[in-house]
């Protein structure tokens, strides 16, 4: 990593910085590959931080903000290390730029609960550089030695007590070179890191001024809405273009891959145009398929498909010699939609000279490549601005909506266009959380300990479409995550295998990905083993647990939830799972108010996310993850008819609402021995099994297939 003072560089002034401002940029060492990708300097070096003449600090944050708190968390890191006044920082999501490539991915993208993990060290280093440069500039200004000065809250303070504000020394700092070595702050010196500072994005999110993708506006901007084939991969068969063009405000009808777009002066006009257009479709890879056929195909693969080992240790037969009982279990979860609160949208303006894109995206580098590929423009001619995201949930890692916007802009003569999907289009053209089937044979010895663990997971592969190079020998690691070598339990003689189930239904990353189902499978199987051996589910987990940090979280959650001492009529379930570098344990308490009714009264959650930046953001993410997982466990089920998704809106695809929300207590553990863990996703995996384990405690009914609604249970 290299940090540069670019205050005086020409290209930098072109980016609109005011003369006299201090600015730092950050670049990676030039590798031949990178140098090739970065024809222009501006592509290679991106601004990270500027301090203007008023002393306002402008931060460019290299992660998309979709609610998970990356923007405020990363701003908090920078502000702390540079000793800024928290009130005088302004944080924006960075535009496209090589220097913003996530070091854990090697591309500019947000996902996998990586933002704080990936940027913790680089951003602290940048902040520390600014602090040191300000001290040097301040010392110059006051005519004293830098070693007699320190930085505190936007000021450089001399040991005599005299001080200068950062605003007064910006122009001096602009002429300094970057120090060769800087010392990061010690833990006790942190003033913002580790504290529940108010999110910097709060003010704009209570008055409607936060700009989401759907809010983008440009002069002469047209709005398009689309309809693509209900069966995946089908083609447009017929349409009434004349009728559509008669609708007031409709300007163009444009064919797009697998469908059609109506371009108008506004969304409502475009929707009216689309209704008049009345397109019909033919064919498609999923055409004719319904739930029953999809189920048959999945089971066929689970029975006879090509199984590849995901993790093998010891020998099943040897282990089984010690067994006194054997549990055979089959678990299943359905396809799920993301249903981001903000429907899919993107704005593009593509001419022969440039492409400009504004989008709520989690995937900047892939989006630029898509735009470049369609337009024939080199990547450096593609500008991409990331807006706020009305949730991402993994859905906005995809590029389909970007592709449409770019294509439509080109087809209407290089004019700017905003593509906005209806909720129905959004729900019916998702990249779904894949359905999955997990079969276990678990053998237990006299003391109830597992002596042989056989598990076959059958599910479509996400990576074979998104990053095929990562699927080696038919094994998609994301399909088995949380159940293979990374299982949290001591499982001697483990044989976990994967069957890649080919399906025409598109699948994608859905908050917590493979952990979203493998935690349900594993934590249910372990719960069954506990009951089969006559053990308390908590005690049993403590005996079998392999992961030390998860064990501590489990211990703490049992204590906080008063495990085993629930009041009459309240039943408890427990689950624990590690994912994305964090360790989360949850206890769910349910009651049964009426026949087949289930009320979640309380969820207690303990999270070890290692060193944390903002405990309140982590708390909220755990709580949000719990409710996201609860929605899925209670209601989530995408069904198919004639190859198309049946559900279309929130009336048929239910979300948890206020009245169903339990009391949620989240405890974020203090563990500064470890580096930061992820927090956007790890709250999701334990909730479904903790809930069904509680339901088992309450009813004796073991739910092995989700959602609960399909099993006749109603969440109240």
């Amino acid at each position, binding site marked *: 990593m290299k940090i540069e003072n670019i205050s005086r560089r020409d290209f930098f002034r072109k980016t609109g910085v005011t003369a006299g401002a201090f600015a730092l940029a950050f670049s990676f060492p030039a590798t031949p590959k990178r140098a090739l990708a970065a024809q222009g300097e501006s592509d290679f070096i991106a601004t990270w931080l500027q301090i203007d003449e008023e002393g306002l600090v402008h931060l460019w944050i290299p992660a998309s903000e979709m609610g998970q708190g990356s923007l405020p968390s990363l701003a908090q890191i920078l502000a702390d290390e540079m000793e800024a006044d928290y009130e005088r920082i302004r944080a924006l999501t960075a535009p496209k730029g090589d220097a913003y490539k996530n070091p854990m991915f090697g591309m500019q993208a947000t996902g996998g609960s990586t933002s704080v993990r990936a940027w913790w060290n680089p951003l602290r280093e940048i902040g520390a550089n600014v602090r040191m440069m300000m001290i040097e500039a301040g010392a110059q200004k006051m005519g004293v030695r830098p070693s007699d000065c320190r930085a505190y809250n936007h000021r450089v303070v001399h040991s005599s007590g005299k001080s200068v504000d950062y605003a007064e020394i910006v122009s001096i700092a602009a002429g300094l070179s970057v120090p060769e070595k800087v010392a990061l702050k010690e833990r006790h010196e942190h003033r913002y890191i580790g504290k*529940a500072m108010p999110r910097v994005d709060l003010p704009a999110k*209570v008055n409607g001024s936060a700009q989401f993708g759907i809010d983008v506006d440009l002069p002469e901007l047209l709005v398009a809405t689309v309809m693509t084939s209900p069966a995946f991969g089908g083609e447009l068969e017929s349409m009434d273009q004349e009728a559509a063009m008669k609708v007031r405000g409709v300007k163009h009808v444009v064919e797009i891959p697998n469908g059609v777009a109506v371009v108008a002066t*506004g969304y409502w006009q475009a929707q009216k145009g689309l209704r008049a257009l009345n397109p019909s479709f033919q064919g498609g890879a999923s055409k004719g398929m319904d739930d029953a056929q999809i189920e048959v195909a999945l089971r066929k693969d689970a029975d006879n498909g090509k199984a590849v080992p995901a993790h093998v240790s010891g020998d099943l037969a040897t282990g089984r010699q010690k067994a006194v009982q054997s549990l055979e279990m089959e678990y299943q979860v359905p396809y799920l939609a993301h249903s981001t*609160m903000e429907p899919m949208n993107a704005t593009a303006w593509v001419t022969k000279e440039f492409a400009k894109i504004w989008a709520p995206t989690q995937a900047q580098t892939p989006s630029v490549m898509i735009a470049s590929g369609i337009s024939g423009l080199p990547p450096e001619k593609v500008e991409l601005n990331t807006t706020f995201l*009305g949730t991402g949930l993994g859905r906005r890692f995809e590029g389909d909506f970007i592709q449409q916007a770019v294509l439509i802009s080109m087809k209407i003569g290089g004019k700017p266009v905003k593509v906005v999907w209806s909720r129905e289009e959004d729900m019916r053209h998702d990249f779904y959380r894949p359905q999955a089937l997990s079969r276990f044979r678990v053998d237990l010895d006299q003391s109830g300990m597992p002596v042989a663990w056989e598990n076959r997971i059958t599910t479509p592969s996400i990576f074979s479409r998104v990053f095929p190079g990562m699927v080696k020998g038919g094994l998609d690691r994301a399909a088995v995550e949380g159940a293979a070598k990374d299982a949290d339990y001591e499982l001697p003689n483990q044989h976990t295998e994967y069957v890649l189930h080919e399906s025409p239904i598109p699948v994608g990353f859905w908050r917590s990905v493979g952990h979203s189902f493998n935690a349900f499978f594993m934590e249910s199987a372990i719960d069954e083993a506990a009951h089969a051996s006559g053990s308390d589910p908590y005690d049993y987990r403590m005996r079998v647990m392999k992961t030390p940090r998860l064990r501590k979280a489990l211990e703490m959650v049992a204590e906080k939830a008063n495990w085993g001492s629930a009041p009459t009529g309240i039943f408890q379930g427990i689950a624990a799972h590690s994912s994305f570098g964090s360790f989360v344990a949850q206890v769910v308490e349910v009651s049964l108010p009426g026949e087949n009714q289930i009320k979640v009264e309380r969820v207690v959650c303990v999270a070890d996310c290692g060193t944390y930046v903002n405990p309140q953001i982590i708390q909220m993410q755990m709580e949000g993850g719990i409710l996201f997982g609860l929605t899925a466990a209670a209601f989530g089920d995408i069904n198919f008819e004639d190859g198309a998704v049946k559900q279309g809106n929130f009336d048929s695809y239910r979300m948890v609402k206020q009245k169903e929300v339990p009391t949620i207590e989240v405890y974020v553990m203090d563990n500064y021995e470890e580096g930061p863990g992820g927090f956007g996703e790890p709250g999701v995996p334990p909730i479904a099994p903790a809930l069904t384990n509680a339901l088992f405690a309450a009813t004796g009914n073991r739910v092995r297939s989700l959602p609960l609604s399909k099993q006749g249970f109603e969440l109240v």
Partner: protein
Amino acid sequence: MLELKINGDLRRIDVDEDTPLLWALRDELKLTGTKFGCGIAACGACTVLVDGEAVRSCSYPATAAAGKEILTIEGLSEDNSHPVQQAWIAESVPQCGYCQSGQIMAAVSLLKKNPNPTDQQIDEQMTNICRCGTYNAVRRAIHRSARQLQEQGA
């Protein structure tokens, strides 16, 4: 021409009769704080007040609002000083923030009718969807607003 009174200002727009208030606000008047979520009045992201009543503007014709007072998120205050906005900040409610304009407007309407709602009344009245799961924070913020409004009234 349709004349609408929005946040105290008279605005004139030329829209089809069937245009929902949501799209008149967003596309014609560029008041984009009010959000599109479902189009069928199921999620509440588009909630605005019409004569003090919370309505889901995606399913409410703009023409029906003629002659009435429309209040959108942009009209609550100039500086985030409305007690409900203040409570929303104090409780750090927004995560992605997309549904929050609707949540805030629904809460404003609830508190107008019922200055000190119980948890059960909040459950019944707050039917907006939040995909980030900020519901408990919304509940805390409504209670906080109620306390503040009572102090102001006292």
